[in-house]
């Protein structure tokens, strides 16, 4: 526990005292007690890692006392720090109390030294940062930037089947029957085959099998189911005959067909 530095620190030199008094005038210039401690520690003229925390505590309390004597208003946190340093000092000087579970004086002192060193290091880092070449001062960006225009290009999609169906719809408007329930809701393979044969030549590229559903068979679920089955069977027949090609990218994904390339 015996701190060899305590003797030198206890007898703070006159020069240090004068320096401390000079600081008082500038009390507003400090950014809090830690800043003041850091400034005081400079007077020890040693590496911050080897600083005498006890000596520093005494310097600080001397500063506070001086300020009080001069009736200078001190912010509360300066006084809190003074109280804490007094506590630290007693811990450093008195033999450890075995009943006390709290941190030892050395631990507290080491942490304070760490805080001071860290603050000093960050100050130095800040200075190095500000000394770097800076944009708009030492190096420069493009003076005539060009704006990248965002072009939103909309492409409209319509297939020839859409086109033909639209036309057919128009031409048969007068005879159009939106909903017709036939006696039998069965769409035969023959009917599907006949209809599809006529259509496959018209749609050039891959087309969803569903699009071949006859118009009036797609609204009623029952008729739609029948027509889908008929269409599917017809598609298989046509594929077997080499008239169409079928593809399906994944299970349950749409089945697509197109006219088989005859040349090859």
């Amino acid at each position, binding site marked *: 526990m015996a701190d060899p530095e305590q003797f030198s620190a206890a007898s703070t030199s006159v020069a240090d005292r004068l320096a401390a008094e000079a600081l008082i005038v500038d009390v507003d210039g400090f950014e809090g007690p830690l800043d003041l401690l850091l400034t005081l520690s400079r007077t020890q003229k040693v590496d911050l890692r080897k600083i005498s925390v006890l000596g520093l505590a005494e310097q600080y309390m001397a500063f506070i006392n001086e300020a009080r004597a001069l009736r200078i208003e001190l912010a509360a946190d300066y006084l809190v720090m003074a109280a804490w340093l007094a506590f630290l000092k007693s811990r450093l000087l008195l033999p450890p109390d075995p009943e006390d579970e709290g941190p030892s004086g050395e631990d507290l002192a080491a942490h304070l030294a760490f805080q001071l060193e860290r603050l000093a290091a960050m100050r130095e880092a800040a200075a190095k940062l500000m000394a770097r070449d800076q944009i708009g001062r030492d190096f420069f960006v493009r003076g005539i930037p060009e704006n990248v*225009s965002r072009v939103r290009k909309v492409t409209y999609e319509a297939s020839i089947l859409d086109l*033909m169906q639209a036309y057919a719809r*128009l031409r048969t408007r007068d005879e159009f*029957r939106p909903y017709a329930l036939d006696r039998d809701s069965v769409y035969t393979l023959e009917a599907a085959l006949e209809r599809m044969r006529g259509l496959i030549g018209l749609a050039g590229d891959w087309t969803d099998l569903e699009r071949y559903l006859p118009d009036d068979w797609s609204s009623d679920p029952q008729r739609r189911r029948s027509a889908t089955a008929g269409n599917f069977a017809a598609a298989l027949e046509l594929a077997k005959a080499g008239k169409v090609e079928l593809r399906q990218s994944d299970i349950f994904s749409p089945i697509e067909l197109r006219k088989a390339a005859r040349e090859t």
Partner: protein
Amino acid sequence: MTDTPEHQDENSSAPLFAAPPMAEQERMVEAMLFASADPLTVASMASRMPHGCDAAEAVQHLRRRYEGRGVQVVRVGEAWAIRTAGDLGFLMQNEIVETRKLSRAAIETLAIIAYHQPVTRTEIEEIRGVSVSRGTLDQLIELNWIRFGRRRMTPGRPVTFVATPEFLDHFGLESARDLPGLAELRAAGLLDNRPPPGAAALDAGEEDEEADDQTELFEEE
């Protein structure tokens, strides 16, 4: 390369000795032209450069250095500037492509034009049974699928619309004559509705309702 201009202030009266090497002057001109918000004249560059520099010559060196590059040193009136090479203008825009389905009005109008060209607006409206909005035609014109044809030699000399080669190209047709006729459409099952009894009654005021039904039929997915 790095001789700083400060070193030569004393004997600036003898520019021959003091001026930095031309390569260095070129760097200076390069940096100034890059950073300046406006084109710079040779005089204004020279005024910023150390004594004895020849800004005009440095610009010429720089101009040659950028020949064929992605940016160019160009003359703008009496001044100089760095500009993007003309052939790379396409990089200055970011294109977002969006695909949308053509509206029912547009596809019907397009179909009528394709089948009946040349056709006037009045005729289109007659066939569709509803008026054709200017926007629909504009959209089709913008898509380059229809264009104006000749005027009709009839009273009022109405303008006609025809389908374009781009239309044929988009729909994979060699000519508009390849479009299947009504008979073929019927044979293909596209016109397989049997006329319901009293269909004529459905004509006048029901455009909207009918439109909805048909939308459901044709424009799913």
